[in-house]
């Protein structure tokens, strides 16, 4: 799993998510089997459970929203454990929770087994426009630096007694963000000079991406293929 070429993993993730989205909401069994698939891949990739759980936390805001749906949904209601809940809301909550969990789970597998530069390289390989991958690459490269600069400023401000607690005390922070923007812009100019100095003419060169073999494609897409079969079955036969 760790060794698969990034473009294979990116395509596999995309196919898997589409398959999950296409599964009808009544097909509990299909969602459950897809969940087993992802869990199986996680075990195969030897991802630590605690690590996966922490990564899955990004889903929490979505879950909270989904859990509110049964209480505020319209239409006919039903009683569960003494609570009056909307039937449509319950279906909505189930759909969101199931599909989001499966999608986030699959994303965790890919992101945990692929470095960010590799993911960008994979996107490049499947012909995502070079402008977009280049922007993504620059963002990854410079996010740390800009965040670091902002952190140093906060320390410098705190060292001179500025500890904002309320929104109306945020002025200096906003000004600092503004000048950070200017500084980043100036850095962009210097980076561009450095690029031109090394012969940049407007097209990002490729380096070090190797085509994936047929075997790697088959191996990488096998899980997603099972998910597609589940989706097709749940749409056509069982329903």
């Amino acid at each position: 799993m760790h060794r698969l070429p990034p473009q294979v993993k990116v395509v596999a993730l995309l196919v898997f998510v589409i398959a999950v989205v296409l599964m009808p909401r009544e097909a509990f069994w299909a969602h459950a089997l897809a969940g087993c698939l992802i869990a199986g891949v996680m075990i195969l990739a030897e991802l630590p459970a605690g690590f996966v759980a922490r990564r899955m936390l990004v889903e929490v805001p979505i879950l909270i929203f989904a859990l509110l749906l049964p209480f505020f949904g319209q239409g006919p209601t039903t009683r569960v454990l003494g609570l009056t809940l909307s039937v449509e809301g319950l279906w909505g909550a189930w759909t969101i929770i199931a599909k989001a969990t499966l999608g986030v789970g699959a994303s965790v597998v890919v992101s945990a087994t692929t470095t960010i530069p590799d993911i960008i390289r994979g996107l490049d390989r499947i012909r995502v426009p070079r402008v977009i991958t280049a922007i993504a690459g620059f963002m990854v490269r410079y996010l740390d630096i800009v965040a670091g600069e902002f952190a140093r400023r906060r320390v410098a401000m705190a060292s001179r007694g500025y500890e904002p607690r309320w929104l109306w005390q945020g002025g200096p922070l906003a000004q600092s963000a503004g000048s950070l923007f200017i500084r980043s812009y100036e850095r962009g100019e210097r980076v561009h000079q450095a690029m031109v100095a090394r012969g940049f003419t407007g097209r990002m060169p490729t380096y070090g991406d190797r085509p994936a073999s047929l075997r790697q494609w088959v191996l990488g897409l096998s899980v997603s293929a099972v998910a597609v079969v589940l989706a097709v079955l749940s749409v056509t036969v069982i329903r």
Partner: protein
Amino acid sequence: MSEPSLEVAGLFFSYPDGHQALRGVDLHVHHGERVALLGPNGAGKTTLLLHLNGILRPDGGTVRVAGLDVSDEAAMEVRRRVGLVFQDPDDQLFMPTVGQDVAFGPANFGLVGAELEARVAAALGAVSMLDAIDRAPHHLSYGERRRVAIATVLAMMPEILVLDEPTSNLDPASRRELIDVLRALPITQLVVTHDLPFALELCPRALVMDEGSIVAGDDTVDVLSDEILMKAHRLELPYRFDPRGGTGR
């Protein structure tokens, strides 16, 4: 003498805001020489460097790199011949991985495949950073980033390596590693620096620049020993440092 690696004659330049940064710069660097360019802040050193590969264009005067005029037509070839290492390695290293960054230059000049990979490996090997080829630049130490920045231009096989303040912000051990790397490189070098012991150790010849022109140029020991010259151009040796005592060449 043979054709100089770098020849600058009567160079003038003003920024759009009217500030005249270069007022008639003349200098030459011969093949295989290592030359230090000294001078106070604001003397025009960095402005001069940006002229060496045609990023800035002079209002008057010429720059020739190994006999080739820096002009619009020759811009690409000049940029290959002049390896400019910028002061802040974070400006120089912009690709997601070290290997991709080192490949950026030679790939722009048309190298592909195994040849490109060999060039990348050789350049990283020359600065002892081959192990970092798949790492992200922001995960490297500052000294390591500085060395990778040098590799990014070495990979273009330049005629002359031009370094802007290469020892700034380095701890003593990283500075020592950098000196060892630069001394081992068999390539013409022009080094802008405020680190005078570094200039003395690395470069047999030194130029002094102030207010937009070259005001002195001689054996580095003689330049650093000339107290009147040093004082006039805001240069100062470290406390108790005797340039005649340690000719570490």
